[in-house]
């Protein structure tokens, strides 16, 4: 039993804010992606998918052996039930593999509307113990996403006591509160956090006082950092073996709002770690370059969240978060001509002759490339690629292929990477 659990390769589940990101997530190694539809999700600012996009996304993912989940994890109000039955029926017809739901009301509606559509219980339900997992198992639910507050020991215990699939977050931004138990945004801005309106009020600045019989006594001094409730971002890249050994079935990356470069880099790094460990658990050794890769796309300093202990002040961000992502996404490879050793690149950020760039791709090792020659589509030489989405031809030393990414180190400040590696 223990042996089998150990060898089971978990699913790597990635966010996809739109169709293009879905394709990158799948190509860079995700076994499944989760997306938002036009309704009932919590990311009103993410691209979100029309039914047409969903169809194309499902076709693309299935063709590559990957699954597509749709988040419908609002905490519903009465008015939200309008159209919900049609919505789930349509998702089922489109071939969506599962929906992610937080509200039992929505679970009921989905089950009535599309009995064969698989339901996963969202992290918004804040499931923190095995008995609650068992409750959902008894309800016929095949998978739950655990609360981010659950430790590795607790995950292990949950797996020991229950036999439905367990999904946990391994990477990305974290709510400060128990998910679903925060309405700061509602009270401070009238925007409903549990229906996609979250204004991230937790990351605002506050001052802390004590009330001395009606007198306000400030618990800070001039020049002190404000009281903020901002978490560092979760990163479990160095602890994948522990999660696999605990029996986690799906490893989830947060970030439907994140860029293509972020998705590709983070997904690819985790893909490599999971594959390396499952290939040879005994001989596995963590390579620092996997974490260095993550840092090239990181938005905030990183933490292991609740997996190993209750987070302290060291897991929070006070004051301005340091600028993290050291690299810009410079261009997307559209095509490659082996005869002239030239890549056709769609520009995403300024780059120029003389700079060093890095090519990454889903299927091979990254490499550094000195930019010696840039030409426009007609073949005229350029000194730089200045315009977003401009198509240019760049000489490369090694073959590249469509969906490879070209990135460039930011000039303004070279991040002291070691600081964040500890």
């Amino acid at each position, binding site marked *: 039993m223990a042996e089998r659990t150990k060898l089971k390769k978990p699913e790597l589940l990635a966010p996809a804010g739109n169709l293009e990101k879905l394709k990158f997530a799948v190509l860079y190694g995700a076994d499944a992606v989760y997306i938002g539809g036009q309704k009932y999700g919590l990311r009103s600012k993410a691209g979100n998918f029309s039914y047409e996009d969903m169809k194309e996304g499902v076709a693309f993912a299935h063709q590559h052996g990957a699954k597509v989940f749709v988040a419908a994890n609002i905490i519903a109000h009465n008015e939200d039930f309008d159209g919900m039955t049609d919505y789930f029926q349509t998702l089922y017809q489109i071939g969506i593999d599962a929906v992610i739901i937080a509200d039992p009301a929505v679970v009921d509606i989905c089950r009535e509307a599309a009995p064969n559509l698989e339901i996963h219980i969202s992290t918004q339900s804040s499931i923190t113990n095995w008995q609650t997992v068992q409750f959902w198992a008894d309800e016929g639910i095949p998978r739950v996403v655990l609360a981010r507050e659950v430790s590795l020991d607790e995950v292990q215990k949950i797996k020991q006591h229950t036999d439905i699939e367990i999904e946990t977050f391994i990477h990305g931004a974290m709510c400060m509160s128990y998910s679903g138990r925060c309405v700061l945004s509602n009270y401070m801005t009238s925007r409903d956090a549990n229906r996609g309106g979250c204004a991230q009020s937790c990351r605002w600045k506050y001052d802390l006082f004590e009330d001395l019989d009606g007198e306000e006594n400030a618990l800070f001094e001039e020049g002190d950092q404000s009281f903020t409730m901002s978490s560092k971002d979760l990163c479990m890249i160095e602890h994948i073996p522990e999660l696999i050994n605990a029996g986690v079935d799906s490893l989830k990356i947060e970030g439907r709002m994140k860029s293509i470069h972020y998705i590709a880099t983070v997904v690819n790094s985790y893909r490599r770690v999971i594959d390396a460990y499952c290939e040879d658990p005994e001989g596995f050794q963590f390579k620092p370059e996997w974490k260095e890769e993550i840092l090239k796309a990181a938005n905030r300093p990183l933490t292991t969240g609740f997996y190993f202990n209750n*987070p302290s002040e060291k897991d929070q961000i006070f004051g301005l978060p340091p600028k993290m992502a050291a690299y810009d996404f410079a261009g997307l490879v559209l095509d490659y001509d082996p005869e002239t050793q030239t890549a056709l690149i769609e520009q995403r950020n300024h780059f120029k002759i003389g700079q060093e760039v890095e090519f990454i791709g889903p299927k091979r090792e990254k490499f550094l490339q000195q930019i010696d020659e840039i030409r426009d589509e007609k073949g005229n030489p350029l000194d730089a690629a200045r315009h977003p989405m401009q198509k240019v031809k760049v000489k490369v030393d090694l073959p590249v292929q469509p969906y490879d990414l070209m990135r460039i180190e930011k000039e303004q400040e070279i991040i002291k990477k070691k600081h964040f590696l500890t």
Partner: protein
Amino acid sequence: MGLQTPELIVSSGSLAEVEKLFAAGADAVTVGDERHALRAPGHFDLAMIHSAVQLAHDQGKKVYVLVNALLHHDHLEGLEEYLQQLAEHEVDAIVFGDPAVFMTAKRVAPQLGLHWSTETTSTNYRTIQFWAKRGATRANLARELSMREVIEIKRYSPVPIQVQVHGMTCIFHSKRKLVSNYFRFQKRYREEREQPLFLKEHVRKEQRYPVFEDLHGTHVMSNEDLCMIEHLGQLITSGVDCFYIEGNRKSIAYNCQIASIYRQAIDAFLQDPQAPLDPSLLSELQKIQPKSYPLGTGFYFKEQVYWKRR
């Protein structure tokens, strides 16, 4: 008219307070201990719960015990025994949020009433139907609902519904120890503060949010005390079954006065639904209201926006 008399429930922090709240007109109290309850105003061990139940039942009143924490495994241990003991002490109901508590109670203490209360996530009637079908006997609604939504929920709810009518409410619950973390980050203040703490927004400095830490992490409370004294008639007419007053962070004297004011307002309305609220009740309430806690009507008459309306 056939109006139903709503139950008036007040949270209570001590036996002395329970006694006084009953005298002031409360029909029921909620009590709890720190291990199982979220934000109970005081600690009630089993002996105290026993006494509270005796006090209550002698007068035909009720005691509800808060077992509404989000439980981690270490707090699941002993849960069966605790629920059995609550049933043995003839507690009228428990208030639960975590399905683990619900399942355990149904198994080991089926005679206990089960009040479903997930705080911020009890927002619609279908969810209530879900829990009622499985055995919940009452639903405590989220505070972030409009009057229209409350009335609609009442219409479709198969079990009695409870709404908060007065006091502060929790607007943020983290497992992290955010106040202690801040003190440690500053390296300046001792961590254990005796006095109540609050946060102020940097931008809108007049907004004060009480904040405190306990076994379950950090809780941030609303910047206003809910006060529905002027709208009880609408709630009663709509058939809302239970009115809750949150007594957390308030003195016994204040809570008893508030309970008494609401008692009088409810009784007066039932006696003569056409008569306006006695203005002296409102002015008395305003007089005892601490300056640092402004009164408001929460979301009863306020629209919220979200993605759908963008």
